[in-house]
């Protein structure tokens, strides 16, 4: 355990150092992560104002609150492992990874966290700025805030394991960008990013509840904004735990098969 903690610490430091080397990239990436929810915020606020009231239980100020929190949650749970995998396979960097006596996912998690730490202050500042402009309706209770923390951690883990598993596609095909595109569309649609799920038609809501994506982003947002009943909160935690377990099992299996494939063809 101590050995692993040491790896996380070193990888974390390395990640921070690498991030700081690329200030311009960091800024562009941040702008993207802030702009996307901002666009949805503006669109939905405008729509709700022009219909003269609320859509799916959201008024203009609720949309503001929803998207500002979503921006923070997305920032915490976001990964780019698909691009990393594609790059590693293309550049033949995986061999070095496979020669290390440690599972590569640890390095990826640590690196992801390091970049989050570097960018978090900026996103928090952006959230404060947007709050000043859009006057969001926050009614956050202490108990919801307390429940939000584990929900966010679970959301991060579920999203990381799912993304990492999908990224393994890079071992099988050279055209991973198509797969990534589909995955991103699914996340965008079913996670509550493009719209809060209660705004979507009923059948889509049901689908979203079954799929893992809502539990990676939408659930913690709805939870902290007090939009869920205690029963729904418990169901949400159960869904997160179930998806985490399922993703871990699938990842283990998929990793083994992918490495076997890699060592058969020798990319």
């Amino acid at each position, binding site marked *: 355990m101590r050995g692993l903690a040491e790896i996380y610490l070193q990888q974390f430091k390395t990640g921070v150092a690498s991030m700081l080397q690329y200030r311009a990239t960091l800024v562009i990436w941040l702008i993207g992560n802030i702009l996307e929810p901002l666009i949805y915020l503006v669109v939905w606020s405008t729509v709700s104002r022009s219909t003269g009231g609320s859509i799916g239980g959201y008024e203009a100020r609720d949309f503001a609150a929803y998207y500002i929190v979503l921006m923070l949650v997305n920032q915490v749970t976001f990964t780019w492992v698909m691009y990393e995998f594609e790059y590693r396979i293309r550049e033949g960097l995986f061999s*070095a990874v496979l020669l290390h006596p440690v599972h590569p996912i640890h390095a990826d998690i640590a690196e992801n966290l390091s970049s989050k730490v570097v960018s978090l202050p900026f996103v928090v500042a952006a959230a404060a700025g947007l709050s000043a402009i859009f006057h969001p309706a926050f009614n956050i209770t202490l108990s919801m805030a307390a429940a939000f923390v584990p929900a966010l951690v679970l959301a991060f883990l579920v999203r990381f394991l799912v993304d990492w598993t999908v990224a393994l596609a890079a071992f099988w095909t050279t055209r991973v960008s198509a797969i990534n595109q589909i995955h991103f569309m699914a996340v965008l649609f079913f996670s509550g990013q493009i719209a809060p799920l209660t705004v979507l038609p009923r059948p889509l809501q049901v689908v979203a509840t079954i799929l893992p994506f809502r539990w990676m982003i939408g659930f913690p947002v709805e939870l902290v904004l007090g939009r869920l009943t205690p029963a729904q909160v418990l169901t949400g935690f159960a869904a997160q735990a179930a998806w985490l377990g399922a993703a871990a099992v699938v990842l283990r299996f998929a990793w083994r098969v992918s490495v076997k494939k890699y060592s058969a063809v020798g990319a």
Partner: protein
Amino acid sequence: METAPAIRVRDLKKTYLVSEREPGLRAALASLVRRPKSEVRAVDGISFDLAPGEIVGFLGPNGAGKTTTLKMLSGLLHPTAGELSVVSYVPWKRDKAFLRQITLVMGQRNQLVWDIPAADSFELNRAIYRLPPADFRRTLDELIALLELEPLLTKPVRNLSLGERMKCEIAAALLHRPGVVFLDEPTIGLDVTMQRRIRAFIADYNRRNGATVLLTSHYMADVEALCKRVIVIHQGKLLFDGELASLVQRFTAHKTIVVQLKDCAADLRAYGEVVSCEDGRLTLRVPKTETARVTAQLLADLPVIDLTVADPPIEEVIERVFAQEAA
């Protein structure tokens, strides 16, 4: 009792399946439906042993199967058939204890994180290999001294020159003091001074740690300086396994005579095979047994300014080995 070999390879095979496609649009469309596959035998039944502490040169032309073999030995590739054991482990199982005992240096971008100084990558490897800080420090100081890394440690890796980066790569790959070292072209693209330094370092590492080293190189100077024994493969098959000296003996029935004349006007084909002639500097290849006779005759018949007799360069010997196999 004989000691167990560090590396044991028996009838090792690796076959790749590759898709084939004719050029042209029609073939491109056809390939949407059906892709004919063909087998490529990259390694085709080779066997050898390496004793602990041995340095062996692994030679062969491009595509001979050298890298494939090294990848199988280090556990990156699963053999199609055959037996393989490295320090008593089956490499492809990639046991953590196995991975701690080996290293593979391949190409220019492996161990080091591109954007940060090499010193930080070394720290990362310390954590990955769980090296006790004192051991790590000692090994690192040694590597820094031997490879003269001191001025490079604080520069981001991407700002290093090719040779500087290679030195850092080698250091990173050896921090955990592996007992088995696979080196794939460790000196490629480096200038002569740097090549010599890396060569000296490899010899030194082998001496100090009793490490078993298998190395491929296109520079015969590397092989001549480091390896008593060479293994030559060609088209996946073992051509030669033995002392470098006997490789030269066995595959060269010729000597090279270089004669300095005034110009290249004279026709010397009667004396032997004319390899080249530049500014009167003429290179002849003659059968070994004929050397004395031809030399005497040249000196008698022609206004020779200078004359030397030599074994052909080792590159040429190797080239002949492959040519002979192909014929």
